[in-house]
């Protein structure tokens, strides 16, 4: 039996992107999703 394994964590499986959007609302509603500068340097 190899000591190496690919799976380390349990995870939730989503069916589609609706599940992803629902996850945002249920798990992280007030967390910051995006941050950027009003006027980036470019």
């Amino acid at each position, binding site marked *: 039996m190899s000591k*190496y394994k690919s799976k380390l964590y349990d995870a939730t499986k989503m069916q589609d992107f609706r599940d992803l959007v629902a996850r945002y609302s249920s798990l*992280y509603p007030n967390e910051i999703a*995006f941050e950027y500068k009003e006027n980036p340097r470019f």
Partner: protein
Amino acid sequence: MKLLLNIKKILGSKEHIKITYNQFVKDIKALGTALINLGLSKKRIAIIAPNRYEWCVSYLAITTSDMVVVPLDKSLPNNEIEDLIIRSKAEAVIFDEHYNEVFQKIADKKNSDISFYICMDNSDKFITYSSLLEKGNLLLSQGYNNYDNVEINNKEMSIMLFTSGTTSISKAVALSQSNICEDIYSLAQMTDIRKEDTFLSFLPLHHTFESTCTFLYGTFSGITVAFCDGIKYVQKNLAEFKVTGFVCVPLMLEIMYKKIMKGIEEKGKTKLVKNMSKICNGLLHVGIDIRRKVFKEILDNLGGKLRILIAGGAAMGKEAIQGFLDLGINLLQGYGLTETSPVVAGENDKFKRCGSVGFPLPGITVKIDNPNEEGIGEIAVKAPTVMIGYVENENATKEVLKDNWFYTGDLGYFDKDGFLFVTGRKKDVIVLKNGKNIFPEELEILINKLAYVSESMVFGRPCEDGDYKISAKIVYNKDMLDETHPNISNEDLLNLVWNDIKENVNHKMPAYKYIREIILTDKPLIKTTTQKVKRHEELKLILKNS
């Protein structure tokens, strides 16, 4: 006022805009509602813009409204944008102000299926993104609930991606939402990305590597996605956004590593750092991790918070890999293709092996097809992440999808512990007349280790006798050479590089792999927006010029 605005643009504003997940969801629903109201259900909608918030809202508004998103490469020349808009049969396009001119021309020509031109910025010529958001919010407040009633078939094409064109003709890859969700599910079992993380987004979002790993898997995990000011400003942005991780290509990390090492060398601390690394790694074996404390000064130069790097797309030198690991940064190497949504294999938080791309992700089966005596053969993948096929291109689909296996066109092997190693693209292998194979990447890794080399490309120059002369185009870092060898003549430079190639590359290889010709330049190689060298185009250019 305008002058002040321009100065702010040049210097970069310190004012950060922060968007909560609640706001993100609200905007997705509003835009989705407005797009449905325009009659775009089931239609294809293209997006083209630099990485920005509106790109992400558009992507999820389109896909969660049962439309097909067609992300386009932001760096395409105008004629190719027009070509892909026509080929995609998109009926709407969402773009930012950089593309006003090209879409005005396309609109005037009336040669595409586009009915709606939507600009992310202010515009008096096109429908604006903000007006659609406003309309969507109004409809929602009036009880218009078509968005909520949309049903998604997660196995149908939802994302249509044109391959980046390291070959001459791009194909359109059809991915379903299920494909991507399966890849996220697999990734989440390998590595621990948390809501406390901030990832800097600078690889183009139209590419699945960035969109799946940073945007979709990242937000699945609740991270903050920070948009970079541009590739030149990565180091500054690391500190400004308190970045904890990013997804990148090895070339960037190798450049970053060389810079770090140069800084250490200038301070006369090379030996000290090496010795401390040995001590830290020894302690690590007994469960004591002091790397981030010992190397605090170096880590502070990288913003101070950087803890995880995800690299893919090409092979990376062992020295740079070990260098980042020694600093206490969790460097994960992975492998994937657009056709596989994209990640197929990756190192995980616990198990890594220098030079490998880790294990096949949970749920993904990889086999080595037709291996040679060294165990090297074509990498084939069977997984729920494998694409539906190439859009309207049955022949191309049949070439790569056989009995539910996707044949990647990449060569590789498994070691005894199950780590996957990718040796190169099947079509890039140089097959000599004596039947020996040469993998350009193997030589390029050694060449790129030379301090003054920015990048390189190894190729076979066709000879009259039908064999190949192993050659290397080497891009040197002019600034670095000016410092270390001021006023060096071309002849002396050639001698310097030749001596280094002989000592550091050829002498480490069997004779048939010796580099016999070098071309020196300080001009970067031709690359895709994901920083992959366009070997085909480079080779054409080299042969044309010689």
